[in-house]
C-alpha cells in the first residue's frame, strides 16, 4: 500500500531564516506530487506541482521554491522566510489517470 511522509511535523522559524520541508511517497511510481498551503485552517492554496523528476510548476509567485530530486521525493524550500509564510503545509500525490489526491499529515510552520 502507498504511504506519504512529511517532516518535520511542526516548525518554528524566525523571519529571514531558510526553510526546507520534505515529502516522500512509498509504494507507488511516477506519482504527480503537490505542495499546498492551508491558512487559518480553511482553504487550500496550491503552491507547486510536479509531474516528474526535475519538473516543477509554480502556481503562486512568492519566495518559496520546490524541487523533485527523486521520483518520490518533493522538497519545499525558502531562502528567507516571511511572517506571511506561516501556515499548514500539505504534500499530496496522485497517479494518473486517477485524479484523486492523497495527502500527507502536514507540517505546521510558524514564522516568528
Amino acid at each position, binding site marked *: 500500500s502507498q504511504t506519504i511522509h512529511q517532516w518535520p511535523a511542526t516548525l518554528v522559524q524566525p523571519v529571514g531564516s531558510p526553510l526546507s520541508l520534505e515529502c516522500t511517497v512509498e509504494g507507488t511510481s511516477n506519482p*504527480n506530487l503537490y505542495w499546498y498551503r492551508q491558512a487559518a*485552517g*480553511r*482553504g*487550500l492554496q*496550491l503552491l507547486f*506541482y510536479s*509531474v516528474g523528476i526535475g519538473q516543477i*510548476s509554480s502556481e503562486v509567485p512568492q519566495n518559496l521554491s520546490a524541487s523533485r530530486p527523486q521520483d518520490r521525493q518533493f522538497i519545499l524550500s525558502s531562502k528567507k522566510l516571511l511572517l506571511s509564510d506561516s501556515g*499548514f503545509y*500539505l504534500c*499530496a500525490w*496522485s497517479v*494518473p489517470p486517477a*485524479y*484523486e*489526491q*492523497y*495527502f*500527507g*499529515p*502536514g507540517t*505546521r510552520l510558524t514564522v516568528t
Partner: protein
Amino acid sequence: AQSVAQPEDQVNVAEGNPLTVKCTYSVSGNPYLFWYVQYPNRGLQFLLKYITGDNLVKGSYGFEAEFNKSQTSFHLKKPSALVSDSALYFCAVRVKDSNYQLIWGAGTKLIIKP
C-alpha cells in the same frame, strides 16, 4: 471559468440526525467531483468521487454523495450523524485539460452535537 462552491461555512447537526454538506460546481465538460474530510491538525482524507455512472456514490465512513447534473450539485450526505463526524469537509473538482489539478471549495465545518 471552472469553480466549486461550498455555500455553508458551518453546518450544525444533532447526533443521530441525517446530515448534508452542500457543494455546487461550474465546469466545462463532464465533471469529476471529489469529497475530502480533514480532522484538526491532520491531512485531508479522500472520502469519495464521482466520475461517471450512478448518481449516488458511496464512500468511506458511511458517507455518500448525490450528483445532480441539472442543479450542478454534489452534496455529501450521511443518514445518521456521529459526533466523530465533526470535521472540516472539502469538495473539489478536476481542472479540465490540466496536469491532474483539482479546484477546491473553501471548506465547510461540520459540528455534530451529542
